[in-house]
């Protein structure tokens, strides 16, 4: 059993989660502080990637990242970088698909945080940045964490958009989910099941680890 798909899936999901983490938190914070009128629309737009079938997302992404695309063509021209059909392209796919999960969970947590505490921090002269990083964020730890796990786990299983922009090249871009699919299609069901099991096992471990972490934090 070649372990490359595992390693590849992990690095894609991890890289995407890190970026989604910051993007999601940032977006949640911005939307919370928008005036009421535009808040709703922004919220909806940021949730949209979740409602589209991943293959459609993949298709649009292919358009964007391809050498003729809005993002792809400058990358190619300036850095001679061809991003599609590489494992890095999958990071973009996973970010887009997992972003709404992170964003929404975080926003929910931000909104249920006691506003008096933020007011108190401001009257104490703490800067907006300090309040955000040291008071709001740790206070919403649970929600932010939940969003992050969901994003990571979802990223690990992402198939539609990933296969569209990264393809399935054994040893290069193969992820667990594209490998499962391919094996399965070949009729190699046993190996496919083994990979499904690996996927489950990792997800289980990740979710379990965060669960324990949460528990420990609550009882320090």
């Amino acid at each position, binding site marked *: 059993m070649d372990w490359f798909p595992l390693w590849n899936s992990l690095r894609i999901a991890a890289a995407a989660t890190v970026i989604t983490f910051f993007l999601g938190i940032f977006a949640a914070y911005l939307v919370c502080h928008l005036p009421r009128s535009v808040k709703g629309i922004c919220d909806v737009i940021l949730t949209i990637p979740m409602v589209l079938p991943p293959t459609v997302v993949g298709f649009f992404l292919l358009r964007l990242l391809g050498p003729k695309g809005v993002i792809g063509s400058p990358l190619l021209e300036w850095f001679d970088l061809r991003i599609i*059909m590489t494992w890095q392209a999958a990071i973009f796919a996973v970010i887009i698909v997992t972003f709404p999960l992170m964003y929404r969970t975080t926003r929910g947590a931000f909104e249920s945080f006691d506003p008096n505490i933020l007011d108190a921090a401001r009257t104490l002269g703490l800067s907006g940045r300090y309040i955000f990083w040291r008071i709001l964020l740790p206070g919403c730890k649970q929600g932010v964490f939940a969003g992050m796990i969901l994003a990571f786990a979802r990223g690990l299983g992402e198939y539609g958009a990933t296969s569209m922009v990264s393809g399935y*090249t054994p040893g290069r871009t193969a992820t667990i989910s594209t490998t499962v699919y391919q094996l399965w299609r070949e009729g190699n069901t046993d190996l496919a099941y083994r990979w499904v099991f690996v996927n489950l096992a990792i997800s289980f471990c990740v979710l379990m680890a965060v669960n324990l972490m949460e528990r420990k934090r609550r009882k320090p």
Partner: protein
Amino acid sequence: NSNTQTDDASNAAASTDPTEVTVFAAASLTESLNQIKEVYESEHPEVELVYNFDSSGTLQTQIEEGAVCDLFISAGQKQMDGLGDLVKSDSRVDLLENTVVLVAPKGAENAPASFEDLANVSSIALGNSDVPVGQYSEEILKYMGLWDGLNADGKITFGSNVKEVTSQVAAAAVDCGIVYRTDAASEPEIEVVATAPAESYSPAIYPAAVLTNAAQAEEAQEFLDYLKTDKAMDVFASVGFSRPDEA
């Protein structure tokens, strides 16, 4: 992601990085092409084959959107045709041929015995026009005058890829399905009940061609030529492909 560690003492040429030849191939070729890769790379140490497998339609889209590709092996003429000027027309060959078969769940009682019986089934799974076998299925059913009836009764369910069709048949979710012989071979839960008569559909050809802007056009052409050799064909034949009639 360098493979320089694979240096073999016997292999002096491998001291430099091998040339990468990118092959986009229909997913139904995964197994056979992976077998061929091993043999081919040991014979041509200067070449490293990089495959990208997916359904032919997806591969077509990826190529259209600018994916780097040297050689394209499609499961249908339509996808190859769709690429137009993107492939070198002089390199295009009909590489393989597949056979369309009617399959049913293993041991099913209400399974049709032949294509003619399809008028009496309650449901049938076909590939959509994106799945190469989908077009042939449509041709066959139209040829037999069954298409309009099945379609109007809503008995046809279209799968977006071969695996969906075979899985649905294997789970007995449908009475039967139409797939390639090669697909049927990969699913133990289904059995072939009939082979479509050759005259009922245009030959299920897998065309292959080198891309116009291929970076390694020469090596790609060389590999394509190799695929046509008997040695490669044996591998293809082992999973149910045949050499297309040189017409």
